[in-house]
């Protein structure tokens, strides 16, 4: 869409890390191939998702406009970017922020992208990512290049891959942590990014780190791989060892599974190899066909934690030694160092800081809820609360100025959809507060009732059933207007909202959780939320809430009001909300809310959702892309071979015969390797190995043979390999490109033949 799209590549040449630049070039070629119909839509969908380019609501080319289902006549017509996903339909670009860590320049880049390619808003997610909405697929390579130049990747932000590695945003400065998990999170993120053992999952895989067991910041128990910092004294050496308590198989979704303890202590140097071993077991044994049971939590459940542990440890034993296991840890530790910009103010009492004329009460409130003393004396962290995780481009730029002015650019996103600025000297707090207030970022209430967390819901998500953001905005408004009972015990409660049962808003771990459902009333579909009470946010999401009753969306504020009032009036001394819910029991709580479960007769406002006047309908729901497409490594490999061949053809057109010949040869190797990999996962990238294995497994067995041409196409590879070191003429390069096409076609035929045979149980 952007006129400048064709210029960014050359503009940023040399400014992007080479592997990221190459990745983006590949994706751009895949876009071109898809537009020409040379790349299958399922394959393109998964490759797109693995670059974080996600579908959005209405991308099937139709939308219920409130009167009728309207066909959206996009200029690119029937061209798709995935099954039932129109090319021109706006999409979401997810941007991975490992551990939530950003610097000032990166904030500025996000600001630029939000205003140039999106709707001016960057959205912080519940997994510390940043998302841009309403993005055109044609703009995504430019977005990715600009991010890469800022050292940010979108790779594997979606799809069946290792998602963003999250970590406690207070890591390194928290009073209670065992040690700073940041370098370990970075090392794991780097190690697993694009790792060959992580390319054949049936679903996504989410790791998380926490510095302690008691707080919520890392939410390790709802992750596929949860790591809690731990130290122990080695009984033999008497020396202190650094490591992790390791959990596996946690996850929310429709039915939440708490992660199971894998090992009470793993030494830090075992972190990367054990994660790799878990990934290999998940890739090998995890469900691939039934998407609803493909997360690691189901594999752990089915096998039992003991068996799963046994398999992982066996896998660990046979892993080829990888120097990156320790190199990445050492490098991350050497490269990661945070320091304050200004001297700390040891003796300053936060509550008595003055210097704000006319706003001192607001300032005190903000100090109380939005600042937290660091373990380093004289410094605090400051939470910047974002309404529903949204921040404007101008605010991002202002935030970049603020973190430059008061810190050494130490800022992180949080799973509560906020920012945390670290290493703020206590003496700077009044000025920093004024700077935040000037750009409307000085709201108090971080982590409090008003700080409602919500997934995108029906606003942009294809799976959304009810408007989670609409409800969240309404609740924030009413809480801000003091519509609910005022009490410290209520202030400390958490509200989390998901637009459907998939739990992206993490409703299971809220005191007051809500997820979207639909009910038919008087012949009309009515948006509802299921009320889930008493989840535990603390202790890394220690326990999950109790579903009580489904209530029409428009009555949810009354639900909050009624429950908070009851809690204030009826709680026992020292009783927290989770305990209150348990003591009252489901029946009594349901009884308390039952009269709200039906809309008042004749009130048609209940037939539409918050912030959306259209008559409510489920007709806009689509097929989600959370899971992506299960594409086998063979399909991926053959897709990559097609792309290389396409690049060879382009080189031929440009008259670069050498490049064309090299690429054509490489494309054949890639296709052959893809076939070999179906039987031999660890096949190397060495050309001799590939050709030898291919010959043994596919040529000698005649599996690759064409019914008419026999082994002719395989011989194209063997000939090219034998002449790999020879100089190619223009003519021979042209022939090689043509032969490569035939070889790749034959590889597809072979793959199809084998998968059909497997399907029929013949092989």
């Amino acid at each position: 869409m952007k006129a400048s799209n064709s210029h960014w590549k050359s503009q940023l040449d040399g400014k992007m890390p080479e592997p990221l630049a190459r990745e983006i070039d590949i994706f751009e070629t895949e876009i071109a191939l898809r537009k020409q119909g040379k790349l299958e839509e399922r394959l393109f969908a998964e490759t797109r998702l693995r670059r974080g380019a996600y579908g959005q609501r209405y991308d099937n080319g139709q939308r219920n406009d409130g009167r009728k289902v309207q066909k959206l006549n996009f200029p690119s017509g029937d061209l798709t970017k995935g099954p039932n996903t129109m090319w021109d339909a706006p999409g979401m670009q997810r941007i991975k922020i490992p551990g939530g860590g950003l610097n000032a320049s990166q904030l500025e880049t996000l600001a630029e992208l939000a205003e140039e390619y999106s709707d001016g808003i960057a959205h912080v997610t519940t997994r510390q990512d940043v998302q841009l909405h309403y993005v055109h697929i044609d703009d995504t390579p430019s977005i990715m290049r600009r991010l890469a130049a800022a050292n940010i990747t979108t790779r594997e932000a979606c799809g069946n891959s290792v998602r963003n590695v999250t970590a406690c945003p207070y890591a390194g400065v928290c009073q209670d942590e065992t040690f700073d998990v940041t370098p370990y999170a970075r090392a794991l993120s780097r190690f697993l990014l694009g790792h060959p053992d992580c390319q054949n999952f049936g679903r996504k895989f989410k790791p998380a780190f926490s510095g302690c067991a008691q707080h919520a910041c890392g939410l390790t128990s709802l992750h596929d791989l949860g790591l809690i910092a731990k130290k122990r004294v080695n009984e033999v050496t008497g020396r202190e060892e650094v490591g992790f308590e390791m959990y596996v198989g946690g996850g929310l979704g429709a039915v939440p599974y708490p992660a199971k303890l894998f090992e009470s202590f793993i030494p830090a140097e075992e972190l990367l190899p054990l994660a790799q071993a878990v990934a290999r077991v998940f890739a090998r044994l995890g469900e691939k066909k039934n998407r609803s049971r493909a997360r690691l939590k189901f594999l752990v459940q089915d096998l039992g934690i003991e068996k799963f542990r046994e398999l992982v440890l066996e896998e660990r034993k046979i892993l080829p030694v990888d120097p990156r296991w320790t190199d990445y840890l050492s490098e991350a530790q050497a490269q990661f160092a945070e320091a304050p910009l200004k001297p700390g103010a040891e003796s300053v009492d936060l509550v008595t800081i003055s210097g704000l004329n006319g706003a001192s009460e607001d300032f005190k409130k903000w100090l109380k809820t939005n600042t937290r003393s660091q373990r380093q004396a004289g410094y605090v962290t400051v939470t910047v609360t974002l309404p529903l995780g949204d921040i404007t481009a101008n605010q991002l730029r202002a935030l970049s100025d603020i973190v430059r002015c008061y810190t050494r650019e130490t800022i992180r996103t949080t799973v509560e959809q906020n920012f945390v600025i670290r290493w703020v000297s206590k003496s700077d707090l009044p000025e920093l507060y004024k700077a935040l207030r000037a750009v409307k970022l000085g709201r108090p209430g971080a982590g409090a009732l008003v700080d409602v967390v919500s997934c995108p819901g029906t606003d942009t998500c294809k799976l959304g059933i009810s408007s989670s953001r609409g409800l969240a905005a309404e609740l924030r408004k009413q809480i801000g207007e003091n519509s609910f009972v005022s009490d410290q015990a209520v202030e400390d409660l958490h509200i989390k909202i998901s637009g459907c049962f998939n739990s992206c808003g993490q409703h299971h771990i809220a005191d007051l959780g809500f997820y979207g459902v639909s009910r038919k009333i008087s012949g009309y579909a009515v948006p509802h939320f299921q009320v889930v009470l008493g989840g535990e946010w603390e202790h890394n999401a220690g326990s999950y809430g109790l579903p009580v009753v489904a209530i029409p969306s428009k009555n949810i504020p009354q639900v909050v009001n009624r429950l908070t009032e009851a809690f204030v009036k009826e709680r026992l001394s020292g009783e927290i909300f989770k305990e209150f819910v348990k003591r009252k029991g489901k029946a009594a709580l349901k009884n308390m809310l039952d009269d709200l479960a039906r809309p008042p007769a004749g009130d048609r406002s209940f037939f539409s959702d918050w912030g959306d006047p259209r008559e409510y309908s489920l007709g806009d729901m689509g097929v989600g892309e959370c899971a992506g497409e299960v594409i086998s490594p063979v399909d991926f490999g053959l897709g990559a071979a097609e792309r290389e061949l396409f690049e060879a053809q382009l080189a031929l057109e440009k008259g670069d015969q050498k490049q064309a010949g090299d690429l054509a040869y490489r494309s054949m190797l890639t296709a052959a390797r893809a076939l070999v990999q179906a039987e031999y996962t660890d096949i190397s990238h060495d050309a001799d190995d590939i050709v030898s294995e291919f010959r043994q497994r596919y040529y000698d067995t005649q599996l690759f043979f064409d019914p008419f041409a026999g082994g002719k196409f395989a011989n194209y590879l063997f000939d090219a390999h034998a002449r790999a070191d020879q100089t190619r003429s223009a003519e021979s390069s042209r022939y090689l490109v043509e032969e490569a096409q035939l070889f790749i076609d034959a590889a597809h035929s072979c793959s199809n033949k084998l998968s059909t045979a497997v399907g029929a149980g013949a092989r």
Partner: protein
Amino acid sequence: MSRGIQWIREEQVKVELQHINVKLALRDPDEVDLNALIPVFHSWIQDQVCGELLLDVADYRHVPDGPGVVVIGHEADYSVDNSDGRLGLRYNRKAVIAGTNQDRLEQAVRSVIRAAQRLEEDVPEGKQLAINGQEIEIWINDRLLAPSREETRSALESELRTFLHKLFAGNSYTLSFDPDPRRLLTARIACDRKFSVSELLETLKEPKIL
């Protein structure tokens, strides 16, 4: 130097003006009820009122000094936008347009004025919404084509002077630029007299086919 801008002489560059954004300031911004505009924008989608494909309504009322309420379109977005605390009706051209810079300026300004006319008519009874008829912001939403620098500001000024002379029918106005190089190339215009939407449309009659 960015690839989108071209040096003509040593001291002057030519800028390709694509992705033009225009914002018409609203009268009595404190009285404008953004909530009331949401059904109006949905009706625009229902009726596909503007010849550009309209897709969705994004509600950012919860974001202070934010995009407000946005009609997301394929070729362009329309919004009642409160960026920088200045409430206005905004047109954000996303798709590339052929023609000259003057053609593209005219297309964007004509689009926002027509939208203003429509919005003034569609706003529910009892609610008010009208442009103030004097203040306009124009920015170029592509940093590579039009970075915010002295030379590009100068190039934009030259294009704008030509265009604004026509739009304001020769009436005088002030033109200023946002000096922040990190922000989009942005011009703020304040005309000395007030124009209604129909007067502004009148000055832009005889549209070129783009």
